[in-house]
């Protein structure tokens, strides 16, 4: 994980069932400025495909997506 990335918004999506983690990231992306970053933590494995797919189709950028223990951690950058 790149520790030097400034996170503008932390999203706790633990316990949410897919597709809700993707929905929440999508709802909150407007809350950070363009170029801003959301750090989202989910527990549903489905989010590993959902969130990158959403980002790719909306033109946003997933800086990193990975498993840490039982959690799935995403850094999503608002592109526009």
């Amino acid at each position, binding site marked *: 994980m790149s520790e030097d990335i400034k996170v503008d918004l932390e999203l706790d999506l633990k316990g949410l*069932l*897919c597709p*809700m983690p993707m929905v929440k990231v999508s709802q909150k992306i407007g809350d950070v400025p363009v170029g801003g970053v959301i750090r989202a933590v989910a527990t549903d*494995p489905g989010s590993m*495909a959902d969130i990158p*797919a959403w980002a790719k*189709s909306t033109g946003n950028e997933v800086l990193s997506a990975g498993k840490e223990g039982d959690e799935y951690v995403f850094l999503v950058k608002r592109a526009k």
Partner: protein
Amino acid sequence: MEPQQVDTLTGVLDKKMTRQLKQYLDICARCAICKDACHQYVATGDLTYLPARRAELIRQIYKKYFTKTGEFVPALYEARDPDESLLDELYESTYACTGCRRCMYYCPFSIDTAWILSVAKAILIAADRGNEMLGQLADAALMKSDNFDMFRDIILDGFKDIEGKVKEMTGDPSAEIPVDKEGADVLYVALAGAHSILPAAAIFHEAGTNWTLSMFESANYGYFFGDAEKARRIADRFMDEAKRLGVKEVVITECGHAYRVAQFFHEAWSGEKHPFKVRHILEVIDEYIRDGRITVRHGAITEPVTYHDPCQVGRNGGIFEQPRDIVRAIASDFRDMTPNREEQWCCGGGGGLVAIAEMEDFRLKSGAKKLEQVKATGARIIASPCENCRLQLEGLNDQLDLGLTVKPVMDLVVDAMEIRR
């Protein structure tokens, strides 16, 4: 209003014109018997949500551009252009509709307001006013299949994580989640979430079913968004998979709209007959219990349980008794809501509303009738086989701190299932 814009939008209406739609637009008497059928109108008293009024907006365009009388005497019908003000109203009333079709049930002419609103959505999309969130979710689903190479390993890794839990749950290290298995009898189409895969996997394992899990989720935001083409392509993802694997049946998880899309819409959309059956998972589980392929312990749950009929599973899907039979087989105290089955109140969570943040307050408010019903039963557990319903019921529960548990029916089955070792 630009004439070109009018042409575009009336062109959509023309393209979507079917006999059913034309009759619905011609015959509504505006008697407003539908007013007491709609949970949203009952909860808010706002004309925007009166079913006949929602449809009336499309009728106003229809009268002006598709009938001579409306063209010459528009005032008689309040016929008007699809201008900004009409589109504003249309957006409000259309994307709020959960598509429960309770109004159709009570209408003396059985006018399917939800069908009229599906055309309204097509018009809104053509005017670039489709709901943004639902559109994004539809595109994300297609992104997965269009770039499948990119997502395949991620999806399979996710399934592996769940498989580990299935082994724990069944106590059988050979338990697995088969994927892409040719010659399987059943293709199970879940949601993206593990919660929809894990219990079904355990049940299929116990029943000894020759099954395989679809790579794709059954949820269809293209349908909620109102783009029939995208909706078809989203459903195609697993329908094509089923054809390729040669399965005998496609089993849809505990999801309302996905079941209706798979069972009633997809063949009409694609113009092809499925070479397999489509069933809802609860039909299958009910059969397993009756045939003794799985055993559940009666009295495994002693707390009072109620069952909420999801509109798309019950009134619009025809599955009323199987879920009740399953719950009764497990719970010693089952209490039905009043009214129930085809007359049941929509909980307010359908139509993709749970994904639309700005509708949250309205959505919870519209659950008033459902809340009354649930409270009247005194049940502590609500079982319901639809993700949207469960999210809404949980929302209502959290908002009022009722201390209820909302569960998929499958979860009750797994809790009560006697695991054979």
